[in-house]
């Protein structure tokens, strides 16, 4: 199941990237290159071979762990993409934490105080959150919190004047390893605005999902039994009800991870976040073939794998779901 999808994805990315108008050889040599020079380079890059040969060469390289070399920097994509991926992961993870924390709690409060003003208010917030364009929210945040109030920085992952040597490129981890708490604080300040922007839509969706699934569970017999025997409200909600309400929430989480990777492209553009979205976007603009096709493939593969993990998580959360029996 996973393998055919991955192969299909590699075919689609390969052909889309090769259909992008403009010669990569020309992009390397510049506009004023002689046609002969362009032709020579195209030949040496193998761009004159039939497409299917180029595809199989590309596939063979991938299987050997060679994702190609960036034309712009001259470095292998595999080497280069790491820090960008780390930046995106850090951002997406943080956004997801925000989304889950606020989303789940908002949903619980709504379900608990069903049909009250609180419920109504939270659901209006959730509805506006779902409809909010990420990039507009990001700009508004920059305007209000970075420009007007001057509370938080509006760009990048860390103050460039900071003395900081990344090891894993997960800045939080790096700062902790080095015991550099000043850097940790700075990394936190930098991630806050983009993470909130990126996390808003998932938060809203998780809130709505939690609410409806909690409402269903709260009506069930075992909750009534728990109430009858005098279990406290907090315990009922967080221990008994939430556990069973979690299955649809996990589904949403899986779906949202993909949206998060997509939304990261926009968020990264706005906040100059050096993540994989911006890396790809720059590569498309400079016609860096190798980076575009491998980059898209890497992101899509991660997405597919996350969805697979989510599927497996179901079985763990809900023993009633079993795989391999269709």
């Amino acid at each position: 199941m996973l393998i055919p999808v991955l192969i299909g994805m590699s075919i689609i990315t390969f052909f889309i990237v090769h259909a992008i108008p403009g010669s990569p050889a020309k992009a390397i040599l510049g506009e004023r290159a002689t046609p002969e020079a362009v032709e020579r380079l195209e030949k040496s890059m193998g761009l004159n071979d039939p497409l299917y040969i180029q595809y199989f060469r590309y596939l063979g390289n991938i299987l050997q762990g060679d994702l190609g070399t960036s034309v712009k920097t001259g470095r292998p994509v595999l080497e280069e993409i790491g820090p960008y991926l780390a930046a995106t992961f850090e951002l997406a993870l943080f956004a997801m934490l925000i989304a889950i924390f606020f989303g789940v709690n908002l949903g619980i409060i709504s379900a608990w105080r069903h049909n009250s003003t609180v419920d109504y208010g939270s659901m209006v917030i959730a509805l506006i959150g779902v409809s909010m364009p990420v990039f507009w929210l990001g700009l508004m945040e920059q305007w209000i919190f970075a420009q007007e109030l001057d509370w938080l920085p509006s760009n990048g992952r860390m103050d460039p004047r900071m003395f900081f040597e990344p090891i894993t490129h997960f800045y939080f981890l790096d700062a902790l390893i080095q015991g550099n708490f000043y850097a940790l604080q700075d990394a936190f300040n930098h991630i806050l605005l983009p993470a909130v922007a990126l996390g808003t839509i998932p938060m809203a969706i998780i809130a709505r999902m939690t609410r409806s699934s909690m409402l269903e569970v709260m009506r069930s017999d075992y909750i009534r039994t728990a109430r009858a025997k005098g279990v406290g409200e907090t315990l009922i909600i967080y221990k008994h009800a939430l556990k069973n309400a979690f299955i649809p929430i996990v589904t949403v989480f899986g779906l949202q991870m993909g949206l998060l990777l997509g939304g990261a492209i926009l968020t990264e553009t706005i906040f100059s976040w050096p993540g994989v979205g911006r890396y790809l976007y720059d590569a498309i603009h400079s016609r860096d073939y190798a980076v575009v096709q491998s980059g898209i493939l890497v992101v899509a593969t991660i997405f597919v794998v996350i969805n697979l993990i989510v599927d497996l998580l179901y079985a763990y959360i809900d023993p009633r779901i079993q795989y391999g029996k269709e």
Partner: protein
Amino acid sequence: MSMNAPTMPNQESVTETKPEQMDSPFRDSMRALLRHRSAMIGGGIILFFILIALIAPLLLPFGYNQIDADARLQAPSAEHWFGTDDFGRDIFARVIYGARISLWVGFFAITGSIVVGSVLGLIAGFYGGWRDTLISRFFDILLAFPAILLAIAIVAMLGPGLENAMYAIAIINVPTFGRLMRSRVLAVKQEDYVLAARAIGMKNSRILFRHILPNSWTPIMVQGTLGFATAVLEAAALGFIGMGAQPPEPEWGKMLSDSRAFIQSAPWTMVFPGLAIMLTVLGFNLLGDGLRDVLDPRMKQ
């Protein structure tokens, strides 16, 4: 939103009306929809935007591309309600013309996705076999990409521009409708009336168009309304990163990205286009949720 569950007026109205005014399920649904508060708010917002998009030229003293070098980056005033941008163009006029663009793109992109997705879904669900395998795998693969990333790649291939952005949005939304249609067809195919139709020797094409298609419409319509919201967002996103509408088209996403240079000096260049996007998307989301509550209670999650 499911706060006000619609009451089905089924029983009373059927008994009260005369035979010639028999209630159809369609009329029932419409009546329930009219009673659905959030759906009506959503529908109202959409109608409002459609209306201003239609009568835009009558509303405005300024053209959306009327450049006025003396009125650059002016704050909102009685003359320029939403202020002016860096070319001295009236932002109110641009936002209103922007409604034309967004609705147009959303409508054609989603119509395209529905048509292509439905045809593929019908074939996959009705015929099954290798056709189903092929089409379903194709959907899986498309869905394996983060949508906006795939859209960017497609636009890069076709060349930046509003029309190509529309094609890209249509393509990335095809699997959603395709899968939905396929699952509906699979369900309807099992119904007794289809079996009966087959038993009396009805042809495949007739079964498809007379029975299966009409009975698969509801979820497609609901998903189409919600998909409209997504399409408007995606079009704005593509415009924002420069892959969609090109200057001087007054597209909302493009206006937002142009405003980035003036966040500090002229925040109104940013506030209004974004607000317009949000309201439009909100309208379609509200209406879509309402339609789902009314038409297809089973889909309610």
